[in-house]
Structure formats: structure tokens, C-alpha cells
């Protein structure tokens, strides 16, 4: 598979946090969701990819290019929306578009104005009078108006109301329909990621703990409820977080497809029940494992 971002042994040390030799790839043409609790290292990883901070070790290649030696070329092909939105906020969206257009090779002013209208953003109002949601939308308009191949969004929906959140996610899905664009989106709101992502990466305590296609992940992670004696010890041993309760026991299967055959009999008699888990449950389970 062709990777748009390739990270090898990336390291960044802070006083109270270490990004610990992570190696990770983002496949081209898909939406990759980066999930992790606060302080997991998602923003640090994204800032390193954007060359906003310098790594203490390792290698980052974006579009196959070394990210620090080809910063300008790479940024011309990336649309970025950060956790916080910074602008010359005493200026208008109109001015900002003109200003930014000088830096991008493929800036499309018509598209920019189209997006401002689509997002119902005032063109002449000072940006400092914009709400948080309006600023996120303006960031998105800038990020999308130079036809980027890669869109990187760091917690873009944090602090947004549900209506605007839905709008933003719909737009992201829309622009990736033809497969020509790749999206890397980080969030601790797993519902957002679950809605749009093709691939999921879990990051905990500065480490990548799991990367998989979302469908594979959800197909393999199941919660199994079973009565006493309905599962053999070998199968129970393959479950995680097994707990006893008044109706029997429950545990999480991390490789459900591998044990599915062993559950057929219990499923038929009703002694075993399978429950789907969400990305949230997986995150909690992975955090507890750590």
C-alpha cells in the first residue's frame, strides 16, 4: 500500500512526556483517525509531521520527501487545521484569503470564497469577532482552498457544538469521496472518528499501541457474555478483562474472528451473547492494559 506519511523511530522528549520511538504509516487515499486520551502524544506527533517542532530522533517522510528538508514543498500540499486557530484576527476573512494566497502555489480564490459562502462566514467582519466554530470553519476553508492532497486536522471538532461538528465531518467525508485526498484526523471524541475514518490508530502514553482498518478492528473486538461452563478454559484465556457477574461472566475478545467457531454452540443455545464494542471501549481497554 502506498503511504503518504511514513514515520520511523520518531522521538521527542519533554520534561514530563516522551514520544517513544514511534513508527507509523498513513496510507494514501484514506481517512486515518488518531485516537488517544489527553496527553497521549497526538498533537506532538502532528506538530512533528508539520515541522512545527523539531524531533529528537527518527525520520519523517511526507509524500516520500524528508519533511524538514522539503518543508515548503510539503506544506504546499497539506491543508492543516490545528487545535487552536490563529489568524491576524484584526483582519477579515477576505484579507486573510488574499494574504494566504501569496504563499500557496495552487491557491484557488474562487473555491475559497465558495467555502466562505458554504460555511456562511462573513467576508468583511473582523476575525476576532468570530465564534470558535466560525474560526474552525475559516481554518478549514483555508486548508481546503489550495487543493491539498493531505489534510491534517488536530482535534478540529473540540469545543464545537453538535451541529457544526456534523457539518465539518460531512464536509470531510465529501472531499475524500474520490480517493484523491488523504485525511489524518486526531480526536479524543471517538464518535467523530467512528463516523468517518477508514483506519484507526490508538496512541497511549507516547506510543502507538494499535493501527488497523476500522472495520477489521470492530470485527475483531467484541464483548462476549457467557454462562458458566459454556466456554472452555482455553477460550476464556483468550479473553481480556473477564469479569464475573450475577448472570455469568463477560470478557473482551480482541481477536473475535479467531474464536468465532468455538462460540457457535453457545450462541445457538443462548448461553453466549456477542456485543459489539465501540472505539471508546477499545480505547478504555487499551488504556487499562497500559
Amino acid at each position: 500500500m502506498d503511504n503518504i506519511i511514513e514515520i520511523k523511530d520518531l522521538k521527542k522528549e519533554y520534561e514530563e512526556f516522551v514520544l517513544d520511538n514511534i513508527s507509523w504509516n498513513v496510507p494514501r487515499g484514506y481517512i486515518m483517525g488518531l485516537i488517544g486520551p489527553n496527553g497521549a502524544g497526538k498533537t506532538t506527533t502532528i506538530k512533528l509531521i508539520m515541522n512545527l517542532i523539531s524531533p529528537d530522533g527518527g525520520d519523517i517522510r511526507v509524500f516520500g520527501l524528508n519533511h524538514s528538508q522539503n518543508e515548503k514543498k510539503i506544506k504546499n500540499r497539506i491543508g492543516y487545521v490545528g487545535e487552536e486557530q490563529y489568524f491576524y484576527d484584526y483582519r477579515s476573512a477576505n484579507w486573510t484569503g488574499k494574504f494566504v494566497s501569496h504563499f500557496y502555489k495552487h491557491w484557488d480564490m474562487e473555491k475559497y470564497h465558495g467555502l466562505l459562502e458554504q460555511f456562511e462566514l462573513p467576508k468583511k467582519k473582523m476575525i476576532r469577532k468570530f465564534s470558535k466554530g466560525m474560526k474552525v470553519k475559516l481554518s478549514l476553508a483555508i486548508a481546503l482552498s489550495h487543493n491539498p492532497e493531505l489534510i491534517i486536522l488536530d482535534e478540529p471538532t473540540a469545543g464545537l457544538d453538535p451541529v457544526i461538528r456534523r457539518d465539518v465531518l460531512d464536509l470531510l467525508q465529501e472531499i475524500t469521496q474520490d480517493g484523491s485526498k488523504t485525511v489524518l484526523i486526531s480526536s479524543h471524541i471517538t464518535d467523530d472518528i467512528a463516523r468517518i475514518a477508514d483506519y484507526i490508530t490508538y496512541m497511549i502514553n507516547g506510543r502507538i499501541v494499535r493501527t488497523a482498518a476500522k472495520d477489521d478492528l470492530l470485527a475483531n473486538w467484541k464483548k462476549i457474555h457467557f454462562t458458566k461452563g459454556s466456554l472452555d478454559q482455553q477460550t476464556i484465556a483468550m479473553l481480556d478483562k473477564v469479569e464475573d457477574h450475577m448472570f455469568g461472566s463477560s470478557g473482551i475478545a480482541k481477536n473475535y474472528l479467531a474464536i468465532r467457531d468455538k462460540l457457535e454452540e453457545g450462541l445457538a443455545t443462548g448461553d453466549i451473547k456477542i456485543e459489539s464494542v465501540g472505539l471508546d471501549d477499545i480505547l478504555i481497554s487499551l488504556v487499562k492494559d497500559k
Partner: protein
Amino acid sequence: MYLAGYMFLIFPLMNYARYTSNEPFDPIYVFYQTPFIFWIVLGAIWTQENLESKIKGYSFLSILPITFSELVISKFGVVLMALLAYEGFQWSTLSLFSTPPEYVPMIRSYLILFGGICLIISGLFYLAIFKLGFLRMSKFVFILWILLFISPLPIREFFAPKFNLEIMDIIRSAASLNWILVTVVSLIIYGGLMQATIKLSSSPRF
């Protein structure tokens, strides 16, 4: 705006007032007006960097396809252009209007000397700001800016009497320097400071 305000409003008014006063030319006027160069150029830098710091302008620029060296070069370039514009303006207003021809070379050298000093201090400001951050440097820069602006007063009140110098002697000795050499040396040091700012900055970004 700040620079334009001084160049096209305050100084023209000052020079016009002098020109229309019908009093004989007094070179001391140049002694007091020239330090305005610090007020204008360093003030413009301080004001701009203060604004960038407040609104986190560099965070905005950092996501755009612009390298740190390009940003530094543009900052240094703008200061050089502003200084050239100021020097040109002062030169034309002071030399063309009511200045006796014998004073013209002296005024030129004096202006260029101050321009050179201002250029080097501007370069040092940027080096300090990019290396240590504006917030850590702002008070120091602000105080230095004020001190340079008012520098003629301590020179007149303390320095000149102590060494038994006349203000005109100071102007003459400053103006006796080779103005071409002063220009070249100032530009070389300024270029060096620009390179140092690019190389020594603590972050690859802003």
C-alpha cells in the same frame, strides 16, 4: 502606518516649521532630530513584534508554506527598506531645504552613521527576539528604545560637559567618518546578524 505617520506627517511638519522660520540654519537641529531614527525603526519593530506576540501571528505563519529563513530575510529586508526610505527622506529634506552647502556632507555622514547604528541594533533586536522570544525581550527592547531616543539629552547634559566637548564637535567628529565605509560595514554586520538569526534560532519554526 507607524513609519508612514512619522515620515509623511510629523517630520514634514517639523522640517516645514524649520524651513519657514526664516532663522539661520543650525546644525544642532540635526543632532536632536536624527535620534528619531531609533524611535521610528525600533519602535516599528517593537510594535509589530508585540502585535505578532499578542495574536500569535507566528503560529499562523508556521502552518503556511514559508520557511523560517524566508521569514527572517523578509523581516530584515523590511527594516532595511524602511531605513533606506527614512534616510532618503531625511537626506532630501535636510539637504535640499535651507541648509548651507558646507553642512551637507557633514549631515550626510551623520545620518548614515546613525542609520548604520540603527541597522545593527535592529539586527540585534531580531536576533534576541527570535532566539529568546518577544515576551522575554520586550521590556529590555522597550527600555533600550527609549534610551536611544533620548540619547542626545545625556550627551548634551553629561557627556559633552565632562569631556569639554561642544555638540558641534560631536557632530563633526561623527561626520568625519568615511560614509561609504560606514555603509558597507553596517550592511555586512547586518547581513551577519541575519545569518546568525537564521542559524541560532532555538526552534526550527517560530
